[in-house]
């Protein structure tokens, strides 16, 4: 094992949270190093550069690591889960392959115990994070429209993505029903923004944006953090966090690009590996002093995994709509977000209205759902569907349950021989009732929009599988892994800043809240530098 020069701060993972915390801490002038197991991405490598752009979504840009199978990926045993794990391993992490949908969690999401008597409250509230949401919106570059009565006030710096034909069609249906709708906030630039080009409607945002209009942290936070002196080292796969005789983190052991084992000493270690990668790393860091895994005296590392069940309801209208020639993100509705016990469940969901698909993905999706026949009827049916598709996703709040968890697989390992994560996950009764309610409302909307051939996928093809809750935040060391500013209860120089610290997940895409929380933790660290370990 070779040695490396000691750093003040070691960040493990360069995705949504790792990048934000690196940028924020850079102003301290501490020596900061980030280890990332993947590579830098090149915009010229993204699928929309080539004619096989749709096929690559199922290949080297699949959102599921087991299918994608890059040598920078690690396998995940998700056989015992109805939902699959989505991630990306590279500079930017999951922001490279997210849809750029940008809702915030609601104030009520942080106080579900106090307001609705379920799960637990966060030790912080929405209002604590509000200024970090705003700061992050400007750093990532958000397009949206202020004035939405469905959410607390926010101030997107760029105008929203056009409604297009599809959004107008949805809007008419929602007005007919009298339900709330609004153009979605998104991190897709609608104007030139901080060196990023504006969106030109490549229409295939998820597997990377060749135009660079979609914000991913490799093109937002990282250039600024590196300019400010942060070092980012790629192709470094961390095996374990080490501790000293005092029970403090002393650094990390990782494998470099040649597979050579290295030790990186550090004064402070920050884990930013997402809700699956982080518990995997902590559990793999078990030692004589921490026999059940690092920072796991509560036994909660890996537990309370929340994945966001996400039914998708689709249909087809007579009018020709936008198809796949624009960002898939279109509108949201908060009509059913807040608790109404008369619905038969607590908490709620966001309805997400999507645009259509490209020619091949339209065919692949409708074939899998049994709506597109093979043979002589194929062409007629296909032509009734292509560019006529409407679809609504139901983003369900997924309350924490300890039996939903990440553990270490006893057999499966990555290419460096590091034990892989195993997922055990089941959808709760409350969430199932929520899903059925959302499906029924989505069917009402699509029917009001004139759609036929309705189809529901309860755990959707390409469902996102957001990774949250597995190292939760709290004030009680017996009921949480990190304190109310991200420091591990058990190891006072070890911090966690990713979605693992979520106490609840809300009914929204989590990246905005992940980054706001990371910025908040970094801010707390900066304020406490003189007595960080007290």
């Amino acid at each position, binding site marked *: 094992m070779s040695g490396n020069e000691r750093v003040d701060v070691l960040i493990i993972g360069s995705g949504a949270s790792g990048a934000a915390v690196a940028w924020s801490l850079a102003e301290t002038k501490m020596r900061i190093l980030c280890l990332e197991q993947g590579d830098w991405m090149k915009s010229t490598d993204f699928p929309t550069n080539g004619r096989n752009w749709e096929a690559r979504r199922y290949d080297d840009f699949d959102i599921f690591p087991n299918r994608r199978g890059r040598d920078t990926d690690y396998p995940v045993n998700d056989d015992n889960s109805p939902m699959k794990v989505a991630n990306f391993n590279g500079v930017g992490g999951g922001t490279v392959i997210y849809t750029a949908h940008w809702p915030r969690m609601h104030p009520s999401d942080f106080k579900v115990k106090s307001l609705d008597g379920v799960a637990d409250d966060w030790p912080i509230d929405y209002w604590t994070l509000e200024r970090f949401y705003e700061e992050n919106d400007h750093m990532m570059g958000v397009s949206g429209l202020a004035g939405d009565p469905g959410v607390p006030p926010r101030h997107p710096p760029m105008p929203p993505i056009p409604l297009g034909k599809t959004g107008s069609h949805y809007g008419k249906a929602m007005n007919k029903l009298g339900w709330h709708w609004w153009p979605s906030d998104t991190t897709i630039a609608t104007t030139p923004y901080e060196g990023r080009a504006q969106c030109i409607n490549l229409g295939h945002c998820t597997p990377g944006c060749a135009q660079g209009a979609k914000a991913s942290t490799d093109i937002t936070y990282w250039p600024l953090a590196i300019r400010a002196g942060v070092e980012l080292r790629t192709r470094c796969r961390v095996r374990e966090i080490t501790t000293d005789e005092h029970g403090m983190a002393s650094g990390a052991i990782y494998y470099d690009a040649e597979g050579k084992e290295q030790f990186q000493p550090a004064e402070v270690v920050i884990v930013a590996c997402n809700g699956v990668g982080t518990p995997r790393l902590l559990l793999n860091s078990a030692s004589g002093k921490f026999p059940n895994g690092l920072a796991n005296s509560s036994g909660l590392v890996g537990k309370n995994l929340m994945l966001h069940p996400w039914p998708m309801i689709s249909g087809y209208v007579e009018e020709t709509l936008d198809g796949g020639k624009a960002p898939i993100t279109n509108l949201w509705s908060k009509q059913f977000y807040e608790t109404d016990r008369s619905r038969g469940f607590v908490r709620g969901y966001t309805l997400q209205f999507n645009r259509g698909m490209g020619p091949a993905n339209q065919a692949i999706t409708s074939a899998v759902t049994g709506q597109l026949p093979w043979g002589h009827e*194929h062409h007629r049916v296909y032509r009734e569907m292509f560019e006529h598709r409407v679809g609504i996703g139901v983003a369900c709040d997924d309350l924490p349950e300890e039996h939903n968890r990440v553990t270490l697989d006893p057999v499966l390992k990555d290419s460096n021989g590091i034990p892989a994560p195993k997922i055990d996950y089941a959808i709760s009764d409350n969430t199932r009732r929520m899903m059925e309610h959302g499906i029924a409302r989505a069917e009402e909307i699509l029917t009001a929009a004139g759609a036929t051939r309705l189809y529901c996928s309860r755990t959707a093809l390409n469902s996102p599988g957001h990774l949250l809750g597995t190292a939760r935040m709290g004030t009680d060391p017996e009921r949480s892994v990190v304190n109310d500013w991200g420091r591990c209860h058990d190891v006072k120089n070890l911090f966690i800043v990713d979605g693992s610290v979520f106490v609840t997940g809300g009914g929204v895409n989590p990246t905005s809240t992940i980054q706001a929380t990371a910025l908040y933790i970094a801010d707390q660290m900066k304020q406490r530098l003189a007595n960080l370990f007290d």
Partner: protein
Amino acid sequence: MDSNAAALSVPELDSLRTVAGTMIPADAALGVPGADDPAILHDIARSVGRDLLLVRQALAEIEAKSGGAFAALDRDQREALINGYYAGGGAAIVALGRLILGAYYRDDRVLLSLKQEPRAPFPKGYTLEQGDWSLLDAVRGRAPLWRDDRKELAT
């Protein structure tokens, strides 16, 4: 990717041609080729990639279901077999279907018949119309839908 084309044996390529042509036949009225068109078939074969084993499995199962005589069946019989097999699910036939559709719907002739430009999205992109923003007037000015925890927990 061409190495994968070589990996499919000649009998497998023959089977693939018949199966692909059954799944997506040519349509003279629409002016579109079938998926058994030589150029499309070549694209399919060279794109097998990581799904080679599944594609082989699907072709073998189709042959088995037809008693080894899929090509000898009439059109309706072949289509019924394929549709029944596909509806039954399974990774092999789904992979084969995805492979054929992915190659078919990027063929220039097919895209032109759908009034699509046969090109990659980047760098030209597409135009998205603004749509009717006046529709949002019905929503603007509504009372807030979100719960303010500060008010609720203060009472």
